[in-house]
Structure formats: structure tokens, C-alpha cells
């Protein structure tokens, strides 16, 4: 049934749209084209994949906790680390961000009634679920699941070295999820370009929405390359195409080129959404506008641009890449990332910071991402990379990064759960869960840096007692148990909120962006009325008309009033374009 969405009135009469008959229950889950339902489906599905991948991580750590372990066979161990990586990267961290949280939140943040292409959005979800199910089906085939690592390097991934249905299922699953991601990328970019509410100019969008726009463009750059590389790989395995086979004149390292041209932007497709969440959450819980809003936007764009020209820094040891170019570009990424850190700290500086659970997860994100980022700069240096390539140092580096992103995801869950469900998650148990996660991350992965420096290679199922890796591996496995407890506590928190709900209200955090202007959860087509959008913080303007400009900004502005042209810029920095934002609506 086609529904014409009218632009909501300001404080106008509330009139119900004609929706026709909307199904409920199971049928709603299958047929809905509402971005909120699809966003929730995505989030729940991604969290299930996260739990499965986490269970595999527990098995990996159990295997490595003691030397000469026979807990898992070599073959099973290979399956475990392959599927752990694949589920986490392809099916959890990305989809939970661009399919789950962004799908739900971006239309709300820009005042849109839905995503630009609702049925395409639903198709994205079904392709994602279909692909994820096919990948998991590998465990039930006779040859077992894919076991060539989440990067599937040629020639290990050819039909002689890894035969069977499991690896094939892995390949076609990623073709499906690749299309799913591309459709979501198109949808996000179109939504942000075409469905913004009046007054919501590009430079008034919340940073999360900005980052999702850039993520959408990155998806369009990266995923088609990966999807075609997978099609080539399938042709090699089944049609004898010899694209990655030396024997037929092919080039195995071409797979690495194509894979990492996707793989490195993918890291930022995973990271940018959580940068956005962290920016918005820090601003809300510091009760200040974002420090250096435009700097944040430009930093996001430069990170995205640079991230697509550094792919071969994963291939330094192949000996066929241009070391100075890729090394320089990789170093350069540290500059915009540094700007982001500076601005995050600047946002907290002299704010009245409240340490609620989302804010704790954001601060955990900052600390953990800093460790992962700085070790990344080390690895961008070819001499250091040659020494540490394929050791646990690299494993620890990217797990620091990804665990930071997981903390960003939990910040997003705790921050937007009230908006999505109308219920609060409990603060006490949330804080305990945070500390388990933060300490657990460091206990698990910090020893792995040392293991890497001692020379422990990646992807080995067992090591000898005489190697001297035992103690650090024990500590690392104990840390994994802390992470397990942390995630279990989160699940307890969710179940508890369904059993004994704490009503959230429309805006429990006194947040500032547009998604908090509507009810929790929002009605069909999101808004029955919109506040006037006169700054980056329309909800704050509405709820706190007396505080449009902060006291210390007023003091700062006082000295600047004489400077020609200076005032609008500074007013713009605090998010107001000058004049009274309510002048047009003063009599309403």
C-alpha cells in the first residue's frame, strides 16, 4: 500500500496518516519496509552473529591457554579463526553500524519520514540474512566451514588447497552480503541528500549522519571491488579461470590487491559510524556543542579518502608494492584521526561531564582506539612491519582497534536503546559491564603485543612449552573470560529491561539532535511535528531557549563583537546562524 507522507506541521494539528492495514507480529517482521523495523532486525541479527563469533573466540582462547593443547584439532582451529573473523568483520561490526544503528537513526536525525528506498532497504536486510545463513551453513557440510582465514589469500583459497562446499558457501555468502551493503550505501547517500527536513542544511547535520554519508560513499567505492574479486575467485575454483593461478598465467598477488582495496576502506567503513556515535554522545554528556564541528567533518572526509589509497600497506612483505607511497599515505591518516581526538577532548574540556554508561563506553573507546591507532602508525613503517608481519603484534593491533569499535557500538546501544524501545537500560549493570569490557580488552590484547614481539606467529593452533609463550597466553585467555562476562551482563540488562521496564520518555539524556524530538519509539513516518531547525542542536534550542549560547562563549563573543565578520563565524561555531531562531515562530 503506497503511503504519501506529508511534511509534518510545526506544532500544527496532529492528523493520522492513512496507513491501510499494517500487519503485526511475524508478518510485520517479514513484510515491513519501515526503516525502524528493518534497523531493529539488522541490529538483533548482527548481535546474534556477534555472540556466535564471540563463542568461537572463546574456543580459540581455550585452545591457546596451554601449550601443546589438543582441545581443538588443527582443522577445527582453522575453521574457528576463519569464521570468527568473517562473522565479526562481515556480519557484525559493519552491518550493525550501517544496517542497524544508521538505518534506524539517520532518517530520524535529519527529520525524514523513512529511508529513500524502503523496499530496497528491506531487500538489503534479506540478502544480509540469506548470506549470513549460507556462511553458517558451511558448518553442516561434509568438508566443514571455510578455513583459509578471513582474507582468503590465493593460492590457499583455490580448489586444490581448500576444496569443498564450505569455502564455496563462504564466497557466495559474501557476494550476497556485498550486494546488501552496496544497496544500503546507495540508500544512505540518497536519504541524506534528498530527504533532509527544511532548515537541515548539510553543515547542520549531526556528525553521526555526516559520518554515515561518508561511510555510504566508501561502501560504494570498496564493496563492488570485493564482490567482483569473489566472483573471479569462484570462477577460478569452478571454471578453471586461472585469474589467481600462476599455472595459467594468473597473478596470486592480484587477489591481495583487490581484497585490500576493499579491506582497508572496510576498516573505516567499520570505524567511521562509531566515530560518529562517539562524537554525538560525548557532546551530549559533556553538555556542550561539538568542538570544531567543521574540523570533524573535514577529518572524516580526509580519513575516508586516505583510507582508500593505503591498501597495500597490508602487502609490504610481498615485495611487489611501492613502499614509500603506501607508507606515507598510511602515516598521513594519523593527522585527521589526531584532529578527531583533539576535538573529542576539546568537546569534554570545561564541559559538565556526566559519566553515564554511554559516556563511559566512549571514554573506553578513546583509550582503546588510541592504543590501536598508535600501534597502527608503527605498522605503517615498513621496517617494523617486516619484523612483525603475521605475528601476534598485528593481531593485537587490530583487536585493539576493533574492540574500541565494539565499545562504540555499546555506547550506541546504551544511548539509543531508549529511543528504539521506550525503555531504559539499567545504569548500574551497564557500568559494571563497561568495566569488565574495558579491563577485559586490555588484559586480553595487551599481552598479545608482547607475544608478537617475542615472535609468536598468527593462526597457529599450538605452541610448545619451550617457546615461552605460555604465561602471556594464559593471561590473554583469562581476559577473554572477562569479555564474556561483560557481554553476558549486557544481555542480562536487555532481558531485565523487557521484564521490568523503566519508561524512558522522549529525551532521557537531554540530548540535542533531532531524533530526540519525537516519541520513543517514534510513530510511523517518524514525526508528527518538527521543531524549527535553526542550529545544529534543534532539540536543545527548543528545550533550553535561555541557553542558546553558552556563558563562556558569550564572554568570548563580547570581545569579538567589534571584529568585522567575526561574529557570524563564532555564532556559527556554537551552532547558531545569528538572529533569534524563534523569530518566525515566536507567536506559536
Amino acid at each position, binding site marked *: 500500500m503506497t503511503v504519501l507522507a506529508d511534511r509534518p506541521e510545526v506544532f500544527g494539528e496532529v492528523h493520522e496518516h492513512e496507513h*491501510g492495514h499494517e500487519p503485526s507480529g511475524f508478518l510485520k517482521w517479514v513484510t515491513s519496509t519501515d526503516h525502524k523495523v528493518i534497523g531493529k532486525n539488522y541490529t538483533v541479527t548482527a548481535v546474534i552473529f556477534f555472540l556466535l563469533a564471540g563463542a568461537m573466540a572463546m574456543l580459540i582462547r581455550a585452545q591457546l591457554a596451554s601449550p601443546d593443547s589438543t582441545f581443538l584439532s588443527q582443522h577445527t582451529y582453522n575453521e574457528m579463526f576463519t569464521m570468527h573473523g568473517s562473522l565479526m568483520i562481515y556480519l557484525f561490526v559493519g552491518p550493525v553500524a550501517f544496517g542497524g544503528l544508521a538505518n534506524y537513526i539517520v532518517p530520524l536525525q535529519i527529520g525524514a519520514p523513512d529511508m529513500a528506498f524502503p523496499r530496497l532497504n528491506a531487500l538489503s536486510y534479506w540478502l544480509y540474512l540469506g548470506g549470513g545463513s549460507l556462511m553458517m551453513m558451511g558448518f553442516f557440510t561434509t568438508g566443514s566451514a571455510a578455513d583459509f582465514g578471513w582474507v582468503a589469500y590465493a593460492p590457499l583459497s583455490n580448489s586444490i588447497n581448500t576444496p569443498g562446499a564450505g569455502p564455496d558457501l563462504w564466497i557466495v555468502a559474501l557476494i550476497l552480503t556485498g550486494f546488501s551493503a552496496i544497496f544500503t550505501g546507495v540508500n544512505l547517500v540518497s536519504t541524506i541528500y534528498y530527504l533532509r527536513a*527544511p*532548515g537541515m542544511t548539510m553543515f547542520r547535520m549531526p556528525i553521526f549522519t555526516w559520518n554515515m554519508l561518508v561511510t555510504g560513499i566508501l561502501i560504494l567505492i570498496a564493496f563492488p571491488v570485493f564482490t567482483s574479486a569473489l566472483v573471479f575467485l569462484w570462477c577460478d575454483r569452478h571454471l578453471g579461470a586461472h585469474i589467481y593461478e600462476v599455472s595459467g598465467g594468473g597473478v596470486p598477488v592480484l587477489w591481495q590487491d583487490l581484497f585490500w582495496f576493499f579491506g582497508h576502506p572496510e576498516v573505516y567503513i567499520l570505524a567511521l559510524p562509531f566515530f560518529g556515535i562517539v562524537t554525538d554522545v560525548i557532546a551530549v554528556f559533556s553538555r556542550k556543542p561539538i568542538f570544531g564541528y567543521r574540523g570533524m567533518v573535514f577529518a572524516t572526509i580526509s580519513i575516508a579518502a586516505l583510507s582508500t589509497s593505503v591498501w597495500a600497506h597490508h602487502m609490504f612483505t610481498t615485495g611487489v608494492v611501492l613502499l614509500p607511497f603506501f607508507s606515507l*599515505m598510511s602515516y598521513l591518516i594519523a593527522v585527521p584521526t589526531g584532529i578527531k581526538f583533539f576535538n573529542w577532548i576539546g568537546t569534554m574540556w570545561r564541559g559538565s561531564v556526566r559519566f553515564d554508561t554511554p559516556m563511559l563506553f566512549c571514554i573506553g573507546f578513546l583509550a582503546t582506539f588510541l592504543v590501536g591507532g598508535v600501534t597502527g602508525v608503527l605498522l605503517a613503517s615498513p621496517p617494523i612491519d617486516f619484523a612483525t608481519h603475521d605475528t601476534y603484534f598485528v593481531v593485537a593491533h587490530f583487536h585493539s582497534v576493533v574492540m574500541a569499535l565494539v565499545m562504540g557500538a555499546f555506547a550506541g546501544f546504551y544511548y539509543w536503546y531508549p529511543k528504539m524501545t521506550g525503555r531504559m537500560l539499567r545504569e548500574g549493570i551497564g557500568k559494571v559491564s563497561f568495566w569488565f569490557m574495558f579491563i577485559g580488552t586490555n588484559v586480553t590484547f595487551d599481552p598479545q603485543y608482547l607475544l608478537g614481539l617475542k615472535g609468536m606467529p598468527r593462526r597457529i593452533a599450538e605452541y610448545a612449552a619451550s617457546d615461552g609463550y605460555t604465561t602471556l597466553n594464559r593471561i590473554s585467555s583469562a581476559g577473554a573470560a572477562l569479555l564474556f562476562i561483560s557481554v553476558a551482563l549486557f544481555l542480562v540488562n536487555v532481558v531485565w529491561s523487557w521484564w521490568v521496564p523503566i519508561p524512558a520518555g522522549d529525551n532521557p539524556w537531554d540530548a540535542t539532535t533531532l531524533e530526540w524530538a519525537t516519541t520513543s519509539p517514534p510513530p510511523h513516518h517518524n514525526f508528527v511535528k518538527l521543531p524549527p531547525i535553526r542550529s545544529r542542536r534543534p532539540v536543545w534550542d527548543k528545550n533550553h531557549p535561555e541557553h542558546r549560547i553558552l556563558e563562556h562563549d558569550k564572554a568570548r563573543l563580547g570581545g569579538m563583537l567589534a571584529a568585522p565578520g567575526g561574529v557570524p563565524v563564532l555564532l556559527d561555531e556554537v551552532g547558531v546562524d545569528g538572529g533569534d531562531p524563534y523569530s518566525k515562530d515566536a507567536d506559536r
Partner: protein
Amino acid sequence: MKIEAYVLLFVGFFFGCAGLAYWLLSHEDAGSVMLLGTFLLGCLPGGYYLWWSRRMAPRPADDPKASVEDGAGVVGSFPGSSIWPFVLGLGATFVAAALVFGVWTLGVGLFLVVAALVGVIYESRRGGLV
């Protein structure tokens, strides 16, 4: 619409420069071609947006002083609930599975895909079934 165009044109500009530098320094084919593709990905839609942005009146969404009433009226047409995305996704999954398990899932998959395409087109014309 201008800023939207500039964002995409920046993608084209950056990857034009990076691709040129990369080609001159390395003479490596695969990476240069991918960077060329990315350059086009930024330039083509970016140029199109820029072309349009000079021909259209500013939208309320581009006007910092616009009030909500300025955008009054129909925003767009949004489909209601529909079973067809599910059928299309299921069909695509069966078609993909045919690449692994052989042609017997291909028939089911293609049937579902065609049914879904027909369903979506009819739904768009006369309003949906579900």
C-alpha cells in the same frame, strides 16, 4: 545541492591526484585502474549534481532560514508493507546457493526472483497486497 556535489567532486579530485601519482610512481596496473574507477565514481554523479544545482531553485533543506512550513506538502511516496523484498532476497539466496550445490536450487531461486519482480512492479502500479 552544491555541498552535496562538492563532496562527490572532492572524491573525484582526490582520487584523480592519488591515481596519477600512483601510476607515475609505480606503473602498476591493478591499483591504478581501481583508483581510476574511484575517480570516475566521484566525478560522474558529482558533475551531475553540480549541473543540476545551478539549474534548480534552492531546496528548503539547503536554506538555513527555512521554516518547516516551507517544505509543506508531499515529501515523497513511500511504499507500505510488502512481502516482495523478502521473496526477492530468498530467491537471490537460492540462486547463490546454486553456485555451490548445483542447478537444483537454481529453478526455485529463479522462480522466486521472477515472481518478486512481477510482484514489485504490480505493487508499484496499484498499491500492495499485504
